[in-house]
């Protein structure tokens, strides 16, 4: 049975996507779940996967073309299956088509008689890549109109000239365009990719804090000093004796909910975040967004790398709910079955490598979030309690902080709250 390849909503806010590249040629055999193409959404380049097995019989949209969500991009079917009915109604979209309106010109669908799975791209409508006429279209996909100075600055700052709207003659990218990208303070926030506000889950309350001059200066200076996110790290060793006791007691009581130490740490982190909105925040370039609700991103290692599903409202959820949710999200993450809205919208993230025996590590902040907490392994070690040396279970946590949002003392106060909660897990029942 034939399967349609359509432009899928790959992010919650996506309305249209640009087909960057077909990864499978016409005539190639594909399996369900295999990546067919790369699609550029409003935020990132993402993969479009096959939703069925068969042969990619037709590519109906040319590379570089933009199509609204739901547009038929191609057809997967058996090698000799008649796909005329599926293809007939579709209008091929060439790269020159306007972003939202489908091009009416090549209205005649390609002859459906092509049965053999021979790759002949020419049968898919004449693809004319005429340069768009409006001034801002600086790019023809390859070369960007830009000044030598702009090219130097972009190379230095690691900016992609393709992604910058040029304001010079015929959309030429000039220095001021790069300055506008680098220092978004005066410009519209939405035009700045690095600091774009992520879509916020409906009902999530937040407060946008206007930047004071000093905060603006701190942000600029720090960013100049270290990469795009000026990060510093705070490490604390927490006593998890009581958490371990609690976990042991749960096990002895039958372990109905399978709450792990990690779940307890997550709950404690969420609770601490709720008390420290200054840490539960996003950096948006021209302002800081502090969240009233805690949506905790939990880093999960998967074969292809890493993904961070979100436990929404983690501070108000019971331990058993967090445990169940994390388990379930991790399972689906490993199977690559997460929906985009399940891994976007976090306000703060946690990464735990304790199970790999890592004592302590630093995690990379997931912008625009202001911080991430890296959890190390629990280790029994001698510590001084009162006047005597005793063996205690200890765990090291390291918070990476975006200095533009979080100052040293702010982060330290948050960690103090976290310490109090983890060293006294009873507080989590309140």
């Amino acid at each position, binding site marked *: 049975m034939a399967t349609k390849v359509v432009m899928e909503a790959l992010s919650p806010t996506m309305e249209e996507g640009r087909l960057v590249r077909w990864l499978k040629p016409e005539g190639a055999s594909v399996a369900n779940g295999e990546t067919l193409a790369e699609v550029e959404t409003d935020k990132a380049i993402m993969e479009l996967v096959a939703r069925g097995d068969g042969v990619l019989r037709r590519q109906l949209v040319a590379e570089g073309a933009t199509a609204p969500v739901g547009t038929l991009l191609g057809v997967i079917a058996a090698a000799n299956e008649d796909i005329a009915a599926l293809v007939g109604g579709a209008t091929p979209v060439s790269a020159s088509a306007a972003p939202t309106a489908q091009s009416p010109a090549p209205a005649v669908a390609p002859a459906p008689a092509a049965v053999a799975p021979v790759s002949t791209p020419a049968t898919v409508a004449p693809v004319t890549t005429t340069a768009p006429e409006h001034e801002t279209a600086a790019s023809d996909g390859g070369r960007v109109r830009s*000044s*030598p*100075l*702009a090219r*130097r*600055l972009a190379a*230095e700052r690691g900016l992609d000239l393709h992604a910058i709207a040029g304001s010079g*003659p015929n959309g030429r990218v*000039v*220095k001021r365009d790069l300055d506008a990208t680098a220092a978004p303070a005066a410009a519209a926030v939405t035009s700045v990719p690095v600091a774009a506000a992520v879509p916020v889950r409906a009902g999530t309350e937040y407060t946008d804090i206007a930047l004071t001059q000093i905060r603006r200066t701190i942000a600029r200076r720090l960013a100049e000093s270290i990469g795009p996110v000026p990060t510093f790290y705070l490490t604390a060793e927490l006593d998890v004796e009581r958490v371990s006791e609690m976990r042991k007691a749960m096990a002895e009581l039958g372990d109905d909910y399978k709450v792990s130490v990690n779940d307890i740490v997550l709950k404690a982190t969420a609770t601490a975040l709720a008390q420290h909105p200054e840490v539960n925040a996003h950096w948006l370039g021209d302002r800081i967004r502090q969240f009233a609700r805690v949506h905790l991103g939990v880093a999960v290692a998967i074969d292809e790398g890493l993904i961070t599903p979100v436990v929404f409202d983690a501070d108000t959820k019971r331990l058993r709910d967090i445990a169940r949710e994390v388990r379930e999200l991790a399972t689906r993450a490993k199977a690559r079955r997460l929906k985009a809205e399940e891994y976007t919208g976090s306000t703060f993230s946690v990464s735990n490598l304790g199970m790999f025996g890592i004592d302590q590590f630093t995690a990379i902040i997931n912008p625009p979030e202001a911080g991430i907490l890296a959890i190390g392994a629990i280790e029994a070690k001698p510590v001084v309690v009162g006047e005597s040396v005793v063996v205690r279970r200890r765990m090291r946590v390291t918070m990476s902080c975006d200095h533009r949002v979080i100052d040293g003392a702010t982060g330290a106060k948050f960690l103090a709250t976290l310490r109090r909660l983890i060293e006294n897990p009873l507080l989590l029942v309140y």
Partner: protein
Amino acid sequence: MASYDVVILGGGPAGYVCAIRCAQLGLSVGVIEREGLGGTCVLWGCIPAKSLLESAYLASRVRHAAEHGITTGELGFDYGPAMKRSRAVSAQNSKGVEFLFKKNKITWIKGTGTLTSPKTVKVGDETHEAKKAVVIATGSRVRGLPRAGLDLNKTTVLSSDEVLILDKAPKTMAIVGAGAVGCEFADVFNAFGTQVTLIDIAPSILPLEDGEVAAELTRSFKKRKIDVHTNAKIGDVKIEKDSVSFTIDKKPMTVDRVLVAAGRAANVEGLGFEALGVRLDDRGFVKVDEKLQTTVPGVYAIGDVAGPPMLAHKGQREGVVVAERIAGQNPHPVNYGNIPNATYCHPEVASIGMTEEVCKAQQIDYRVGKFPFSASGRARTAGETEGFVKVIREAKYGEILGAHIIGSHATELIHELGVARENEFTVEEVDLFVHAHPTLAEAIAEACLDSLGRGIHA
């Protein structure tokens, strides 16, 4: 009532260029001008002054004719014929603008206009309607320095207007104001045998130019026996029938003529601004927004009347931009940060962008590259080795922050660097272009190289 799409008040460089561009874009245009077409530039400024400067240049060249094996009889330097020639050149240019008006079917309304509404201008008894826009391009005029006791009397205390039509060069002349105009006339009258005293209250001549350039010009002027006084205060001005006496820093001095080469005022009187609501800024120029629109929608102002820099080429570009805007286009705005300055005295001075003093004040990390014309083969062949090219680049990326040239043909040479800067070429791209040898322009490439520490010929 005559009706046009656009009515322009003033036929100077800003106004006439605006008119031609409007006409090219299919708009009907009426230009109100009381005197001749071309304005101050053509009639009382750039063009006749440059004609006289050319005469002065020839005067200084011919003094060296013998070196080239050219024998002349006894040399004579008579300002009168040079002045007459300059008037003929000026008249020719004005006729040229008249021709352009005819070619583009632009109506010249002779007289003085007064705005009676945002869409009507009265000239004498006649009212002219502007269906789309009114453009004010009335320019500026010399003002004199009444506070220093130097009221223009047109006999002994002169403005550039009167100096341009003198029959002969005075024996002695004090020029008050050592900006571009003052330096140019110092050059002219020095060449025609006048003993010139050049005076400015600022710490250097050409106070807006780079300090090293001003120092070089001062040296050159002093070598030619021009008496240069900077940081100077004038007092006790006494105007006699055929002379003026005053003190410079308390030292007395008497000269035949004083040229007041400082102070210009915008022509904003009698235009009906107050009744209409066209407002002025605190310096007396018409207040305009970034689209060059005045405080009255549909009424634009361009050129000197819209504020400094008071340069013909700045006004001309504003004229083009406003015309295109009126025609519904979205023109590139005027890049005020890259307008060339040109002073046509000898040696010539030209610049774009920031001076080294400004870079220092703004704490920019910069590097300077210099190349003296004394090391240029082409300059030596011409026997004109005064001056240098100075390029200021940003330290890290090589952006051209400013460029300053003093020397022969500097006002022509500056444009290479102006185009480079406009297009954000760095010093390296300027050098990458192979410069013809021998040319004066090689000095530009060498200065760029020098800023990178890689100069070849110096």
